[in-house]
């Protein structure tokens, strides 16, 4: 490279870094540093019983491995993900396909599905707490019309997760629908027309054309849905506080409890580290797993 070219390259690099600088400060301070900070603090015993935190190695992790509540919480997260991710993708895909077609009140239908997205999770928790209340809640009233007695949704260990999943599906399906709508609109009409000309049945059209071409969107949506299933805990605060007996407790809420109710800072950091590792693992799996299946034009 000639010196003039080199100088230009240097200037360009400097300029680029200058552009990145503001974002980088905040990223470093509030994404990178906290990750390593948690890692470090997780190796300390720092709770109410230790006014001076001391280095304890992997003690917190050992205690975590023996902690029943931790395993319960982790299992709950798995069930929560399993319950919300595929289901929400299916529902939202269905919604998108129908909302994409010419039908009366298309706009209204889309609005009806999408509006829960703009409501804060904490308000949704409030609303559904009322809906699930035995005897006076909406669900109980509806069942009453059919002469059935509804159970105590949020108070029964076997039902509370299902109740939460339904609520989260209600919130998220509309949001994902919009992404699928975008994806659908990017599929060329020609493909559908030539399929029609060839007399291909509708479901085949879906499996061979629509679904594969929507793979990138599906990947995107599934990542969001999966991350959301870990992030969404606001409702626990207002509805069950993780109960009954941790049946609805989730990892992030357990971190919140450990940090701000038990004030066990070492353990909270350890739990955060575990959560971070989990998320990174899942992201990696999704990227490499899906990668093979995506058809790009």
């Amino acid at each position, binding site marked *: 490279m000639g010196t003039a070219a080199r100088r230009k390259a240097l200037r360009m690099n400097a300029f680029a870094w200058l552009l990145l600088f503001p974002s980088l400060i905040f990223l470093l301070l509030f994404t990178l540093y906290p990750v390593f900070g948690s890692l470090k603090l997780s190796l300390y015993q720092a*709770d*109410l*019983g*230790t*006014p001076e935190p001391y280095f304890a190695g992997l003690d917190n992790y050992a205690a975590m491995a023996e902690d029943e*509540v931790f395993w319960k919480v982790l299992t709950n997260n798995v069930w929560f993900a399993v319950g919300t991710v595929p289901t929400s993708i299916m529902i939202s895909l269905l919604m998108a396909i129908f909302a994409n077609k010419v039908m009366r009140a298309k706009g209204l239908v889309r609005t009806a599905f999408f509006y829960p997205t703009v409501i804060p999770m904490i308000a949704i928790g409030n609303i559904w707490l009322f809906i699930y*209340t*035995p*005897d*006076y809640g909406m669900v109980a009233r509806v069942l009453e019309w059919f002469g059935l007695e509804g*159970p*105590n949704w*949020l*108070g*029964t*260990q076997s039902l509370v997760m299902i109740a939460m999943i339904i609520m989260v599906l209600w919130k998220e399906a509309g949001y994902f629908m919009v992404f699928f709508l975008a994806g659908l609109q990017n599929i060329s009409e020609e493909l559908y027309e030539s399929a029609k000309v060839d007399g291909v049945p509708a479901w085949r059209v879906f499996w061979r054309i629509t679904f594969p071409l929507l793979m990138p969107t599906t990947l995107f949506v599934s990542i969001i849905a999966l991350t959301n299933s870990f992030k969404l805990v606001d409702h626990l605060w207002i509805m*069950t*506080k993780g*109960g*009954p*007996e*941790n*049946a609805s407790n989730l990892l992030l809420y357990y971190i919140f*409890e450990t940090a*701000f*109710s*038990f*004030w*066990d800072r070492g353990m909270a950091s350890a739990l955060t580290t575990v959560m971070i590792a989990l998320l990174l693992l899942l992201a990696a799996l999704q990227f490499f797993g899906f990668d093979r299946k995506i058809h790009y034009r």
Partner: protein
Amino acid sequence: MRSMTKALLLMTACATFAAGCSGGGNDPAPTSSSGGGNGEKPAATESAKPSGEKVELTFYYPVAVGGPITKTIEDLAQQFMDENPNITVKPVYTGSYADTMLKAQAAVQGGTPPDTAVLLSTELFTLLDMDAIEPLDPFIAADGTEGETFINDFYPAFMANSQTEGQTYGIPFQRSTIVLYYNKEAFKEAGLDPEKAPATWDELADYAKKLTKDGQWGLEIPVTGFQYWMFQTFALQNGDNMMSPDGKKVFFDTPENVEALQFWSDLAKVHKVMPEGATEWGTVPSDFIEGKTAMMYHTTGNLTNVKNNAKFDFGVSFLPQKKTYGTPTGGGNFYIFKGISEEKQQAAWKFIKFMTDTDRIAQWSIDTGYVAPRVSAYETEAMKAYVQEFPAALVARDQLQYASAELSTHNNGKVSKFINDAIQSVLTSTVEPAAALKKAQEEAEKALEPFNK
């Protein structure tokens, strides 16, 4: 394009500026709706203020009962400020007890503690472990005989959660006990004497069975929220308290407690007089008012709410006894925080005395339904007139002779979670009381280890 950039930069600058400026937590809001605050920031490092300059107190308080409590508190604060022109009180409504505790702790950890707050009496040990609160004995002593009369006027049952190791840290303010509410009309319908509430465990089960019918439960006891508090009733009625007064030991798995938990569980599963599963704390009073349950265990704090909303004649009585009557106390105390200046501490002490003044505390009790924590409050004209018209208000006070301290230990957050989970495991699934309590005991002991060295 340039103007758009300019506009955006201006917007950012303004937003950040405005946000940064009005941050810091102690500046007046653009529309001040909370009472009393002036523009003074409490200095983090206190320097001696020349006398005559205003002292500003930040006061965190929870609202745990329905009604215009915020207004009442702000009115009281205003009255105090009128009487003490050199003190400004800034009451900050911080949500439920749990929220208030969270915020107080966060504030302490962040280096900007409030000056005074009303917190659950059970948070005593946690606050001590954080070295967050001041002992109040010096203040009491400084008031001489007046101080002595003051502190002795509080019911011992309420002082139990306010003192430890010979020192006083809290002044009872909005205290309660659990009582039995019962629907007199439902009693009549079931052929029971509406003036006679069940007095023993057996009678409780018996009455509840008679009262249970389609659309109506005999009894409801909350299984969420403060279920350990509810459990303490049975435990105290059958044996000793669940923890040691110094907050370092717990006694969860005694045979008496196992029996107590078994009784509670049987009410739901065997006698079928209570709904199974986790009955939500908040729905129990609504259920009672709507007539979906004929009896309920709940806080006296609900008295005014039930009185105003129940369309039927209802009664309030002691909780049924087993070996003795018994109930835990509940509710909040005033604390003074460490790390604030001498002036502020004095001002806070004045404020506390003002708020717990006999007449005021009597009125507070009448307005909210909480038990007035001072003996003298029941001698005031206002209170006497009130109980004439509403004798139910005296039940909680009379039960005080059988009342004991609410469950409170070091590492309270963890320990109460263990016992709460244990109770829920028995009532919402099929775990046996003995096993559940044993597990809670082991877990609690582990959590209390560092405090027993």
